[in-house]
């Protein structure tokens, strides 16, 4: 007798637990796919599901090495996740690589001024695929409290962001949650953001 596997149509079936990714998850509106799932499109096409790919994704997700891209206050909190109390080395981010060529994750921590936007994009371009971007803090996600001439209104205007971590600055635990959710996203097989989000493609 053939065992029938339950059909996996939602990201939750692939192991993603982040609420924001999957909202709404319960209640009346939970019947259909959420906004992010709609954005991705048909999941079977998008997600890498062969055994080899799963293994690769597992390895990639468990050893994301961030790039030292501290800009402002969030950089100080980013330093504290490296320190011994909120140690992200136990989540796989063993070292912060100074060279973008050797880094996997660009944690944009801090406000991005228009003058810095150029170098930011250059650093992003120098990173080798697959690469992920975390917008850490309110300023990177959406310019935070700085709705003015000098600050880029959200770093997702120039790079494709995988995960946003709100806060001003976010607690170290919040940043770690961001990294953990990103790891889940990777291990579930979701492609990095530049594959399904078109941002500043030249």
């Amino acid at each position, binding site marked *: 007798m053939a065992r029938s596997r339950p059909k996996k149509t939602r990201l939750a079936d692939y192991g993603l637990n982040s609420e924001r990714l999957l909202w709404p998850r319960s209640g009346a509106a939970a019947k259909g796919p959420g906004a992010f799932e709609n954005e991705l499109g048909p999941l079977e096409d998008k997600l890498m599901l062969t055994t080899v790919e799963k293994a690769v994704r597992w390895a990639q997700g468990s050893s994301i090495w961030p790039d030292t891209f501290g800009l402002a206050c969030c950089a100080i909190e980013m330093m504290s996740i490296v320190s011994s109390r909120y140690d992200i080395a136990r989540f796989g981010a063993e070292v912060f690589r100074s060279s973008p060529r050797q880094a996997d994750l660009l944690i944009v921590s801090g406000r991005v001024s228009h003058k810095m936007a150029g170098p930011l994009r250059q650093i992003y371009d120098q990173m080798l695929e697959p690469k992920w971007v975390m917008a850490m803090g309110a300023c990177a996600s959406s310019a935070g409290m700085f*709705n003015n001439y*000098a600050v880029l209104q959200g770093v997702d205007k120039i790079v494709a962001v995988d995960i946003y971590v709100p806060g001003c600055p976010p607690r170290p635990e919040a940043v770690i949650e961001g990294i953990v959710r990103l790891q889940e996203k990777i291990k579930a097989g979701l492609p990095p953001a530049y594959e399904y989000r078109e941002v500043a493609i030249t």
Partner: protein
Amino acid sequence: MSYDGVPGLLETREAFGETTLVVETARLVEACEHLRDEHGFAFLADITPTDYLGWGTRGVAGYIGTADGRDLNAPGSQGLHKLPEPKPTRFSVNYHLLALRQGAPRVRVQVWVEDGEPVPSVVGVWPTADWHEREAWDMMGIRFDGHPNLVRILMDDDWEGHPLRKDYPLGGEPVRFSGEE
């Protein structure tokens, strides 16, 4: 501390425990050298340009509170429409000086200029004025004559406009419920 000998002195004001010396723009460098050499103000703390465009048009009214509360015996102290005094020109450039000696005396030197009028540079008097004047040029568009390197410092090199001027918009994105008027 008597500032009568300062060259080009137009007015001396005392307010909130601070002394402000309003000086003729043309004799600014002389006045600064006098203050540095005769009075010992060797430390230039800050150069701040201020734009007074639209000063007094916002209609500030009402009672200003004190630590003890409202004075019921002062008639007309509520709802009194009080406009600030108009300023002589659009821009003022303020130099905050400090003397490194007992008592930490401070003084503010103020010059008033119009849009486009240059101010003599005090880089020769205090080398620290270099970046302060560059920032004043970048942010307010006040030109300093005699500055060796008057280029933009905070904004991009090819930025147009001087952001801290009152007629320069705040910028950013339109946001619902931002609370801005």
